[in-house]
């Protein structure tokens, strides 16, 4: 509403009557509105589509490494997310919110957290769950407590625990790809946890490892995430504190006992990069205060290392972020800045 008023304001051109200065002022409509008075040109669609652009490097690299199945998976998830969004809009009797791009992001992010061999029908179930239960049941974009994409993945993990942890190796081996459709392979984290093997850090950086579609290549996510940070559409404090805590805590544990993986391995393995840059920074589900953002990142980092080193699962990015999502309202409440003149309690 407010935006419209201001747009009209710009368009109104006072009739030229240089003699009468008061007349000129008179033609300006008087705007009385509540705060905020400073407006930015950013809007929800603009931010969302920028995030999608930032995801493109990871999309391209995952199609390069995993082939067409990756493309099918992502398009299936995006399309089903869009359809679910339309359905919920229709049921709730509101305007169609497809153009704001948030459903596309949810579908795309969910697809990137799934293993390449995952069946498409199951992926659709997860996407519909993410949109309907994760977002619209809570009241739509801006009201959801949990990151919808991660909630969808958590649901899939609970539904199909075997299928979601069956990984195939990227098809970059020319000889192998002629003989077989895919080779099952564990992720570096799984290899480390259950077999005690380490993986080559160089391959982990470029993405030539087993894993989910979008999480294997650290470099593509750093490029996209860096773009988001420069555009200031993601709070830099969250990835910095999240990755920093994982690195520090991982280093301490490695120093105490070298049987734990070294901190660089922690940073490059699993979905940490994807989670830190694209999921933890979700504007809706992360704290709004700077202090809160630090707490959020540090908490998620500690949870992640604890789950990875002492938990039953090899990977904990999803649960660490979801758990911190759950306490975000509490963090917001306790890091609320004081009003000027408000006494200490």
């Amino acid at each position: 509403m407010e935006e419209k008023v201001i747009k009209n304001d710009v368009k109104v051109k006072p009739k030229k009557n240089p003699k009468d200065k008061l007349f000129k002022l008179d033609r300006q409509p008087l705007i009385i509105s509540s705060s905020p008075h400073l407006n930015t040109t950013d809007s929800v669609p603009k931010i969302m589509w920028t995030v999608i652009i930032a995801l493109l490097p990871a999309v391209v690299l995952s199609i390069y490494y995993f082939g067409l199945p990756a493309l099918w998976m992502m398009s299936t998830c995006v399309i089903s997310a869009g359809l679910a969004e339309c359905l919920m809009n229709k049921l709730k009797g509101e305007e169609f919110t497809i153009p704001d791009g948030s459903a596309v992001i949810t579908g795309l992010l969910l697809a990137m957290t799934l293993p390449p061999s995952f069946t498409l029908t199951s992926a659709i179930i997860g996407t519909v769950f993410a949109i309907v239960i994760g977002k619209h049941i809570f009241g739509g974009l801006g009201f959801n407590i949990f990151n919808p994409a991660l909630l969808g993945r958590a649901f899939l993990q609970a539904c199909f625990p075997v299928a979601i942890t069956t990984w195939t190796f990227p098809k970059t081996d020319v000889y192998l790809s002629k003989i077989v459709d895919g080779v099952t392979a564990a992720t570096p984290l799984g290899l480390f946890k259950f077999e005690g093997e380490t993986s080559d850090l160089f391959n982990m950086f470029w993405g030539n490892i087993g894993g989910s579609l979008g999480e294997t290549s650290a470099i593509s996510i750093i490029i996209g995430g860096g773009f988001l940070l420069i555009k200031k559409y993601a709070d830099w404090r969250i990835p910095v504190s999240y990755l920093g805590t994982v690195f520090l805590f991982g280093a301490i544990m490695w120093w105490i006992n070298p049987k734990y993986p070294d901190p660089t391995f922690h940073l490059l393995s699993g979905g940490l990069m994807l989670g830190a840059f694209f999921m933890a920074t979700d504007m809706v589900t992360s704290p709004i205060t700077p202090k809160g953002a630090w707490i959020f990142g540090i908490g998620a980092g500690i949870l992640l290392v604890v789950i990875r080193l002492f938990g039953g699962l090899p990977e904990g990015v999803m649960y660490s972020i979801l758990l911190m999502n759950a306490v975000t309202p509490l963090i917001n409440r306790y890091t609320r800045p004081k009003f000027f003149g408000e006494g200490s309690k």
Partner: protein
Amino acid sequence: MAKKSNSLTYEVVKGLWNENPVLIQLLGLCPTLAVTNSAVNGVAMGLATTFVLLCSSILISVIRKIIPAQVRIASYIVVIATFVTVVDKFLAAYTPDISKALGAFIPLIVVNCLILGRQEAFASKNNVGRSILDGIGMGIGFTWVLTLLGMIRELLGEGSIFAISIMPESFNTWLVMILPPGAFLTLGIFIGLSNWINERRVN
């Protein structure tokens, strides 16, 4: 409300939807969540609870004037526990499989707040006839919700209803639906839907 709230038919009908014990009053959620991992368990639990509810409603309604107010809860528990023992032994004798599947939740009907709640709120204040109608209505309301929950969870979690497989072979079962989180999810969606329907009916 279309029907008069004190008519005899309303005493039965109210339990089915308007004052449904699970969807509206949120009573007896422990067995609702715990045993509805298959349709058979849902039906068995619903019927067992209905029997206990009906019998104790009759008995307590009969003796409601001689129970001292100070010890009424204890008296209700004794009456309810009697009928629960009957159900427990009956199930163990005739349907040992179901008895094993329901396990501790049959004895736990004693502390089901649905039964205690109906005694306190209804049977101790109304005559025997109305108490019977109330017990039947609440029991059927409880049973249909449990059965439907069990059917949905069994269908998605194991691809069958009443142990008859109906999903195609290629169907990937949703493991979560037969685990506790599935119960919370399904019940939450149920209650949400019923609230949504009620809201639309009012408007």
